[in-house]
């Protein structure tokens, strides 16, 4: 695959570590150019983007190779960092590299002067964030993993709170860092279980342990809790719709499109690599959590009125779908149906890549819209495809991918996932054979609802008439922003049209994790994606696209040839009603109304309805999350109560504190005397 001369001393992992170090250097340079805005945006961010591209290339080359290890003597004495580059890490590095390249290019044109954090510092945080994500994926011992995981959480916390002058942003950041730490504790405990009292925290040692089902399950559950908190599974999702929208758009893109994947990576690493045991109910649990998360995410996404919140909820939905795929793969591999497990895992990993592409693209697009209009509320946008054609058309690609429509990237993973559902009759447990088709039905429902949400998202922002006067003059994205979005949109299209080529890259990963792959069969069929045999199922996206475009073009030419191409412009018809204004279009609230009505029990809704006698009638609906009331408010109340108990001791008088010291001293002495 590689055309480079590869001397024996040269390893991919060295290159990857060098690139990560270069990211850190780029970030550090930002500190020395704190307020030199042009230098940071025109030199440092593009440099970071190029490094991302290089990382993508290097990981692409490493994906098919053998695992490589490296030990760096940094950290505590006698406790070096272990790194390992295998197929799984190479795949996630590819996703990180490719996505961050687009986002960095966008960021080069995005950040403006005078927005909270100075640009140089933002550059540091941004590149530390990137580097820590790459190292999380590379880490080969729990110590390095946790250090990188925490660096990732902290650097992203500072990025989320870039606009720290806004109280809401600070609040979102606080919620985020709290949840991140709850997750980190669970992960730490999980590694504690996995090392099985040997005191050796390298992953190699964990792989060598064979745990009893009880301890393995404990480790697995802790991993689900810890990584799930990062991935935003139900009910640990509350931070996600707050933190992702609060961040500047490139950071939202990085968090939704890339950081969430590290959680998926961690869960995969623990459940498929570090643990040998596979119990079917683990998969069942993931399936149930994933399904609940996906349904919750999409239903809430469809009623949002803030464009970035809508996308954040859509991220929750996609994480749910990914977990469903993973759960299915676990179930199949627990019953040793390895080819099917590989199919489900391929679908999962494919979705990781396509989600990274489309979600980053969509978040970047909202950034451009935000800059052009200073408006995040869907109810005040509209008609932007005319003033911002670049953003509009690129976003359309992202929206279609996100809705899981053929022939784009999102559909391939959905298709593979549904294909693997068809194999459930082979499962030995009748309960599962019965329940899993219901899961398939709900997955189909989620996908269809995602379509609803995305039509709302795109239609309300980009189509129709501008709902505000200022939108007419909204400026399109600049060259850097366009380049970044174009790169990601190309990713969406490429993932859609070349599934067999991409599955080649996933193949070594599934071979590593479940001991089977679908690569050879998928490739043998050229342009067609064939999971098993041609009689069973096949999908050829290129032919599909050509079929649509070809018949569209033919019909266009035929109409021109046999009739005419005359076109007149006029006022909108609107059933002859001439007084239509922009405010009569469906708003985001209006478009979400059917969903609110159908899924009413899901929501905690507050309605403010006008009466006929109001001088200024107001209609307002707020939709809230029930989980906040059910779980978080009691926990917060309990914490406050405990804090009040503690405060009884804190009288603020020196004499009382002296008394405490005295008592402590006496008690200690008594204990020592014994």
């Amino acid at each position, binding site marked *: 695959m590689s055309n480079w001369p590869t001397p024996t001393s040269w390893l991919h992992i060295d290159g990857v570590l060098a690139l990560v170090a270069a990211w850190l250097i780029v970030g550090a340079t930002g500190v020395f150019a704190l307020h030199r805005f042009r230098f940071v945006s025109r030199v440092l961010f593009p440099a970071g983007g190029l490094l991302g591209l290089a990382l993508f290339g290097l990981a692409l080359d490493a994906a098919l190779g053998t695992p490589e290890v490296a030990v760096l003597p940094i950290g505590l004495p006698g406790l070096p960092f272990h790194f390992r580059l295998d197929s799984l890490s190479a795949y996630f590095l590819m996703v990180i590299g490719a996505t961050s390249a687009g986002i960095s290019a966008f960021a080069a044109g995005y950040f403006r002067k005078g927005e909270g954090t100075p640009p140089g510092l933002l550059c540091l945080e941004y590149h530390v964030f990137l580097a820590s994500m790459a190292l999380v994926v590379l880490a080969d011992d729990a110590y390095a993993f946790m250090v990188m995981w925490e660096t990732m959480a902290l650097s992203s916390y500072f990025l989320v709170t870039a606009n720290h002058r806004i109280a809401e942003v600070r609040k979102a950041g606080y919620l985020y860092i709290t949840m991140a730490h709850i997750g980190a504790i669970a992960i730490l405990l999980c590694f504690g279980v996995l090392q099985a009292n040997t005191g050796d925290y390298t992953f190699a040692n964990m792989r060598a342990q064979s745990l009893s089902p009880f301890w393995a399950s404990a480790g697995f559950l802790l991993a689900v809790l810890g990584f799930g908190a990062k991935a935003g599974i139900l009910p640990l999702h509350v931070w996600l719709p707050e933190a992702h929208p609060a961040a500047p758009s490139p950071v939202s893109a990085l968090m939704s499109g890339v950081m969430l994947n590290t959680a998926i990576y961690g869960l995969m690493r623990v459940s498929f690599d570090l643990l040998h045991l596979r119990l079917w109910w683990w998969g069942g649990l993931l399936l149930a959590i994933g399904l609940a998360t996906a349904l919750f995410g999409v239903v809430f996404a469809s009623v949002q009125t803030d464009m970035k919140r809508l996308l954040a909820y859509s991220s929750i939905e996609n994480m749910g779908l990914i977990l469903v795929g993973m759960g299915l793969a676990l179930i199949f591999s627990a019953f040793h149906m390895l080819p099917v497990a590989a199919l489900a895992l391929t679908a999962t990993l494919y979705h990781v890549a396509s989600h990274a592409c489309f979600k980053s693209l969509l978040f970047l697009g909202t950034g451009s819209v935000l800059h052009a209009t200073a408006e995040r509320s869907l109810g005040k946008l509209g*008609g932007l*495809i*005319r003033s911002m054609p670049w953003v509009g058309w690129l976003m359309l690609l992202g929206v*279609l991918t996100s809705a899981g*429509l*053929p022939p784009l990237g999102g559909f391939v993973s*959905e*298709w593979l996932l*549904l*294909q693997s559902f*068809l194999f459930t009759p082979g499962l030995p447990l009748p309960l599962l054979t*019965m329940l899993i*088709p*219901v899961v*398939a*039905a*709900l997955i*189909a*429902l989620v*996908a*269809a*609802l995602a*379509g*609803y949400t995305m*039509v709302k998202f795109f*239609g309300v922002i980009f189509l*129709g*008439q501008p709902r505000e006067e200022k939108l007419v003059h909204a400026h399109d994205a600049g060259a850097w922003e366009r380049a970044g979005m174009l790169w990601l949109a190309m990713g969406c299209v490429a993932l859609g049209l070349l599934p067999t080529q991409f599955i080649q890259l996933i193949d070594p990963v599934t071979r590593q994790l479940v001991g089977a792959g679908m690569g050879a069969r998928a490739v043998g069929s050229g342009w067609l994606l064939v999971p098993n045999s*041609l*009689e069973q*199922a*096949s*999908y*050829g996206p290129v*032919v*599909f696209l050509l*079929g*649509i475009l070809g*018949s*569209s*073009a033919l*019909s266009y030419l035929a*109409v021109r040839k*046999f009739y005419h191409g005359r*076109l*007149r*412009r*006029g*006022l*909108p*018809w*609107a*059933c002859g009603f001439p007084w*239509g204004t*922009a405010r009569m*279009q*469906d708003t985001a609230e*209006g*478009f979400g109304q*059917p969903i609110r009505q159908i899924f009413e029990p899901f929501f905690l809704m507050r309605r403010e309805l006008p009466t006929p006698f109001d001088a200024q009638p107001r209609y307002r609906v707020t939709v809230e999350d029930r989980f906040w009331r059910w779980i978080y408010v009691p926990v917060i109340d309990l914490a406050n109560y405990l804090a009040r108990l503690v405060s009884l001791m804190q009288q603020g008088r020196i004499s009382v504190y002296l008394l405490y010291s005295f008592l402590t001293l006496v008690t200690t002495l008594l204990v020592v005397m014994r």
Partner: protein
Amino acid sequence: MSYLSQLLEIVIAIALAPLLSGWVNQWRAWLQNRSAPSLWQPYRMLHKLFNKDSVVADNASQLFRAVPYLVFGCMVLATAIIPTLSTDLPLATAADAIALVGLFALARVFISLAAMDIGTAFGSMGARREMLIGFLAEPALLMVMFSASLISGSTSLTTIVETLAHRDLAIYPSLAFAGVAFTLVSLAENARVPVDNPATHLELTMIHEALILEYSGRHLALLEWAASLKMFAYSCIGLALFFPWGVAEARAPAVMLLALPVLVLKLAVGGVLLAVLETLSAKMRIFRVPEFLATAFLLAVIGLLVRLLLGN
């Protein structure tokens, strides 16, 4: 030979689709004691519309003008991959049952986006209702397809048809459930009576008409043609899944000659049944539609479970 049958199938679908609409309209008129329009009325309509100028709103974007062609293209592809005359279709390998459902979804998303493009109250209302119907109908349709897929162990439409056609003639409970579900879904998807009324222009009740309200001339003609192609495609899916006999297979190309009259006969009977069904039922309120479609969804899932538990 296989390319010939593929081409023949596309041409027949495009040519026959308006005829099916005309046939259903004729029967509806007869059943409602009206004097019926000619069978060729849809063709005259299309010809008239193609001849007219297209009037496009001032603020329409490129998307608005591209959508009629794209939707028409989607529907042509849909009819190309459904085995109506023959199972020997080269294009059918490019899209299986799941991709077919995705194809309908793609067309729906495009037409809804186009309806929102002008920014009139009717357009966005139509888009919202269309998507509302879509998000319930799409999974139900997928589950119907899944039932058939489980029986044949394949999602490839040609394999499904070949397997189903070779089974013994009997009533299979799973297919019976799926059949009822499919009927409900196709009524909703094709804007037929209990869900939508193809003849109405009453603002508050229309769905399909609201979507295409801003279109005129050749664009409208293409969308109308695409709508009748969609009905044709749905009818063919129904025939392929539940009455698959008479479709020519790769092994016996000569049967193609027989397949066309069989298809016309089956469609004619189906059209009459549709007209009867439409005459017997009244249009529902829009918020009854989710219940209607949820019923379809549940029936489809029950069909799936029946297949899994009882094995037939």
